[in-house]
């Protein structure tokens, strides 16, 4: 039926059926959630709440992975029908993707506000800018406009999942603050705002504190008018990765 209204010029086109996200979620919870978490945010398996999946660059690759698994850890879902696989794949994609919706702001004005507010001093977009803060080239695909607006107004309330500021005090009482790049039981690697990377053995530190909910990013709630904020959010929402 859906194909009947299509132009006859592409008869080879298979009938497009919208995937059933709810059915996909049910299958995901039953068969995938043990490792990926029921909400797909990861556990023993990786977090799938991402706009781009390393091993599944496109939907065909994602379906293949669901069908064949990734030995040695991920089992194949041999018992799922083609439709089931499509539904799960669609659900997995929905985890990390924000749908495009019309926004009241102006993208071009937002881009100018981004430049004039000094955002590129910390964020790389499309290969331009400085890299202290998270890259934003595809932030519009990963984050909803509501999230983006809140992140601009109140940055500490919307930190990325693996983002953590830390403060290390060296034996000679020098304080080092920065973004944690990596950490194990014995060592920590910190990126300072200057761009300098510091590596410490924890036993040589006088103190080490996790600065939970802290960020070097200032709030732009006062600096931007509501209209400017709308423009900036429209610009950020338009950033959907390399085309």
């Amino acid at each position, binding site marked *: 039926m859906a194909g009947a209204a299509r132009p006859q010029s592409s008869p080879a086109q298979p009938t497009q059926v919208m995937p059933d996200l709810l059915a996909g979620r049910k299958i995901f919870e039953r068969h995938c959630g043990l490792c990926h978490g029921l909400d797909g945010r990861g556990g023993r398996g990786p977090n799938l709440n991402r706009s781009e999946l390393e091993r599944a660059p496109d939907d065909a690759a994602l379906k293949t992975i669901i069908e064949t698994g990734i030995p040695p850890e991920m089992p194949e879902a041999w018992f799922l029908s083609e439709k089931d696989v499509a539904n799960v794949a669609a659900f997995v994609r929905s985890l990390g993707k924000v749908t495009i919706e019309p926004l009241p702001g102006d993208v071009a004005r937002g881009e100018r506000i981004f430049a004039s507010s000094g955002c590129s001093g910390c964020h790389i977009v499309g290969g331009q800018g400085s890299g202290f803060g998270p890259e934003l080239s595809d932030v519009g695909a990963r984050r909803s406009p509501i999230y983006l607006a809140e992140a601009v107004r109140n940055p500490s309330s919307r930190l990325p999942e693996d983002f953590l500021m830390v403060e290390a005090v060296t034996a000679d009482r020098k304080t080092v603050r920065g973004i944690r790049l990596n950490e194990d*039981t014995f*060592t920590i690697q910190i990126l300072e705002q200057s761009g300098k990377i510091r590596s410490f053995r924890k036993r040589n530190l006088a103190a080490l504190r996790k600065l939970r909910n802290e960020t070097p990013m200032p709030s732009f709630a006062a600096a931007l008018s509501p209209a400017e904020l709308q423009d900036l959010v429209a610009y950020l929402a338009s950033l959907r990765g390399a085309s």
Partner: protein
Amino acid sequence: MRRWLAAVVLPFVIGAARAQVPASRILHAEREPGNWLTYSGNYAGHRYSPLAEITPANIARLRVKWAYQFGTEGNEVSPIVVDGIMYISGPNTASALDAKTGRALWTWRRPVPSDYHNIGFGRVNRGPAILGDKLYIATLDCYLVALDLKTGAQRWATKVADYKFGYSMTLAPLAIPGKILLGVSGGETGIRGFVDAYDATTGKQVWRFYTIPAPGEPGSETWSGDAWKTGGGPTWVTGSFDPELNLVYWGVGNPSPDWNGDVRPGDNLYTCSVLALDAATGKLRWHFQFTPHDTHDWDASQIFVLFDAPVGGRMRKLIANANRNAFYYVLDRTTGEFIAARPFAKQTWARGLDAKGRPLPAPDSEPSEEGSLVWPNLNGGTVWFSPSYDPQTKLFYVAAREIGAKYFKREAEYKAGTFYAGGGEDELPADDAWGAIRALDPITGAQRWEFKLHSPPWAGVLSTAGGVVFSGSDEGNFYALDARTGKFLWQFQTGANIGSNPISFQVDGRQCVSIAANRVLYVFSLP
């Protein structure tokens, strides 16, 4: 006459030459500290090495002796070392390595069938077993395979179960006099678990004990309807053995489906229990259930540690277990009598235990539609990776996990060979989780010291007579602590998460320690 003599004498001569590791050697493993003859180093589950060359005073000089690269990822092997040869295993593979150099002497492979599915666990193998002239491997597709020690040639392969129904094997078999014992995985696929014993020479099954009783059998009153048929109770971690009592102690895993207990009302014996089985017959001598009617996937799939100690003024034969449910338990291993228990990691699911060790469930700790926040998470306060018991310090060392999760309950529908779990969990964020190596008083479970870890560990503990305890972190650190104080001594970054058990052995007159870290097996020694 001459022919008659030859017929009688020859088998003895050949038998002696072939019997490289008779059971008597494993029974007295402490007499040859340079070897590592069984999964836990001894039958008592101690994972303790009597070697004392590496000490807190000289460990700073410990360095890599050699490394071996596996062909697969995520290796969890605990090797066997005998007379200068190390035997390792992976998923459907085994190799003999020259323990001096790490060079492979032979490799055996069994193809994994294309329709095999690992459901609820990785494609791993935790180690081989050795007895006589054979090496024994439990395969993913459920065969017990006996290999010739010298060449790796297959002597026989016995089918244990049908993998198409979700059965699998990842454990190191347990070789006891005359028999090879094993258990199965499949707690997420609704199997009916069992412990099996096979004749070490012929591969013929000697006995089987089903962990889920059939209707009419003792324990069947803890099930209703047909739930027992898909009741789970896997047996995926190697058991311990007391040769004097001739009892084998084996942990039983979760009931199926994991998180939705509605379809299986009752205590669901013998899930989440320890079984004391007669080694000769497989008959159940006693059992103790740690988590009746489990709904959190808290298998009793840990190493059971046997030791003797005074309790209430008299020496007792004891069995101890740091359980996935976050309690440390001590039982009498002759009778199964409950002696003591206390939490060794954060737990919020029980208000405590009654006088017989039965838990008193806390409110709102059951999985629910909207999610219930409970400690520990499904991987537990600890799990399959081994604890260690040090007879010198008389301490029980456990790698403890401090992590909570929201548990969800969902519909469960049984379909052979697929997930039959009925829910799941969402873990708390990584920075809200951590881990520790804890030294416990083995009789009471009281904590003596703690060494904090950045994240919940997935590696076992080795104690050594040199007063050094070894373990690995999820960030790849292989590290050493002072056995008496827990003070940090040494660490090496292996480059990949460690999810395996360390062992110690001797080669070239030098004490070595080894650990598998993902794709690489490292061996360390002093220069």
